[in-house]
């Protein structure tokens, strides 16, 4: 008897009363279909026009339809729920739309003038309106790499030290420093550029250089590295620190040989996020490295170029071919940022 009962339970299918019945699904589909058919007709007869007009009409029609359905099914209270649900879904769509559009346009337009020589030549002998198989962004790519390398060399150690101060030392100024790091992450990039301009370019008598740009970038990079490093170091269990100290190690040995290695992948994520933050900065570079058309390796002696600045300056010329080159610059820049972003995600994903 009991066994049979158990068998009955085990073979029982869970019925899910909240699942939409076929009839409901047909109704929902009909509403969308009717809205899709009606909206072009309405657009035809009113002053609306274009893709955005169609989308807007379709949205309003399907909203009205879903309100009607939920009112007929469950009464007034369900109407608020239906409206809110469609608004929330459409707000999410509104976020994905520009992202998809940005990715699509950067790739499709950037691809048009992407050639091998984009990576092997600079613009020193080429006018912006020349054919696409002449000239390239080599100087800008190299410039970005050099700038980012110098900025990292400055702000990665300082950022990690700040993170260590906030998690290991916990000195009297802990809250002040935490606040200041947050304040620093809100400093507009143009202000960082102005600051470096006022201290270094004016100080050296109008001498633009890649190093000045790297300093401006390191100001923007420092808070990102420091905050992420702090988050990661916080996750290291206290047991590890106590174990290190209990073995007779001094604090610095514990930190250097136990805590930091344990947080290594997270710290690498912090560095990558910092690099991704500054690789695309344009405004501070406008005031510090000025831009240049020739390939330059020495960051101390002359104006340099960088990918965002290359894109921006070509765009400012207003010529069609230059703008096409600017899209290619944007594509290369976007590719670099995307790769960095994916690496940062992979690193932080493994941690959890």
């Amino acid at each position: 008897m009991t066994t049979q009962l158990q068998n009955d339970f085990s073979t029982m299918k869970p019925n899910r009363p909240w699942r939409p019945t076929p009839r409901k699904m047909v109704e929902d589909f009909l509403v969308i279909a009717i809205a899709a058919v009606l909206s072009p007709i309405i657009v035809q007869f009113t002053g609306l026009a274009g893709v955005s007009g169609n989308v807007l009409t379709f949205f309003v029609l399907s909203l009205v339809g879903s309100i009607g359905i939920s009112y007929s099914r469950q009464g007034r209270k369900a109407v608020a729920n239906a409206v809110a649900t469609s608004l929330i879904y459409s707000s999410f769509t509104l976020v994905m739309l520009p992202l998809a559009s940005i990715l699509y346009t950067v790739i499709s337009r950037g691809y048009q003038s992407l050639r091998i020589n984009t990576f092997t030549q600079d613009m020193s002998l080429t006018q912006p309106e020349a054919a696409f198989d002449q000239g390239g962004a080599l100087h800008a790519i190299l410039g970005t790499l050099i700038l980012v390398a110098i900025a990292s060399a400055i702000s990665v150690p300082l950022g990690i030290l700040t993170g260590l101060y906030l998690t290991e030392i916990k000195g009297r100024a802990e809250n002040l420093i935490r606040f200041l790091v947050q304040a620093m992450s809100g400093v507009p990039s143009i202000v960082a550029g102005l600051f470096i301009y006022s201290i270094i370019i004016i100080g050296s008598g109008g001498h633009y250089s890649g190093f000045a740009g790297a300093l401006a970038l390191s100001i923007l990079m420092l808070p990102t590295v420091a905050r992420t490093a702090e988050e990661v170091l916080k996750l290291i269990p206290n047991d590890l620190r106590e174990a290190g100290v209990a073995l007779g190690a001094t604090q610095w040995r514990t930190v250097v040989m136990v805590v930091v290695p344990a947080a290594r992948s997270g710290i690498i994520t912090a560095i990558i996020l910092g690099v991704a933050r500054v690789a695309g900065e344009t405004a501070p570079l406008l005031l510090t490295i000025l831009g240049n058309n020739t390939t330059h390796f020495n960051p101390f002696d002359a104006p340099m170029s960088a990918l965002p600045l290359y894109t921006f300056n070509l765009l400012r010329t207003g010529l069609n071919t230059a703008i096409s080159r600017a899209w290619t610059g944007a594509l290369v820049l976007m590719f670099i940022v995307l790769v960095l972003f994916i690496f940062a995600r992979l690193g932080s994903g493994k941690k959890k």
Partner: protein
Amino acid sequence: MPDISALPETLPERRELTTVPRFSDKVFRGVVTAGGFVSLIVLGLIALFLATRSFDVFRMFKLGFVTGFNWDSGDPDNGITPILGIGAMLIGTLVVSFVGLVFALPIAVGTALYLTYYAPYWLKKPMTILVDLMAAIPSVIYGLWGFFILMPHAIYWAKLIHKYLGWFPTFSVPLPIFERSPFIAGLVLSVMIIPIITAISREVFSQVPLDRIQAAYALGATRWSMIRSVVLPFGSSGIAGGAMLGLGRAMGETVAVYLVLNLYFLPNFHVLFSAGGSVASMIVTKFGEAGSLELKGLMAAGLVLFIVTLIVNYLSNLIVRRASRSGR
């Protein structure tokens, strides 16, 4: 029986147990503390240097620099005195950021709600990553996209708004020119700050106690009435803090605004009309041909922008921290 004679005559002295850090630890603590104070030094230096470089400007124009509406580099040879004032740019910055916030806030909160309560489980993580990715896209790319792709659409929407809501003073235009208006700049900014507001709202929503959500459902709430009565009251201050943070980001945005906003040195509240202001993009615009006094004026503008964003960021951090600390 142990061999007693093998033991040394005198036992070594007892090791001293002490909490005084060793010399190496003192060095370590000194280095780390010094590293920690870099942010203080940098912020102090920024304020100090911008203030000293722009001292002349503030002495010449006093408060008029912040309230004045005119930017004229003058011509000392012909006796035309320069007049520098960033009042219109400050108002323009506020208008543009506010327009951006008006669009970004509901969309970002809706997205955060979608990602927390509506999205199917397998979709949550990839979609969150995609929204975070938007924060990593360089601003010059937003500017490019805003100018070439968004602007044609936005002009159409602006004309539509003007046609049907033109009786409202803000939506009227003195001339039918809709390109590069505060409305369009605000739209681009809203796309740029949505990921920030979404991230902070999502963080707050994920802290809503589960028992309250379940209690609301148990009392027969629909999903929306649960959100309205549990999630939104709990998360309201977090949303406000996120909005402030987005506002601060929007006010400091330079390149994207430069590309999609037409600068005009008079306050303009007709958001659909092609005239606006932004301190940050004014600095870029004027930087190339600035004379020595004008350059000092740009430093002063940078200082004002720095102070304004610091205040906005301070307030937002205050609100967010209060939101996460009070364990309602």
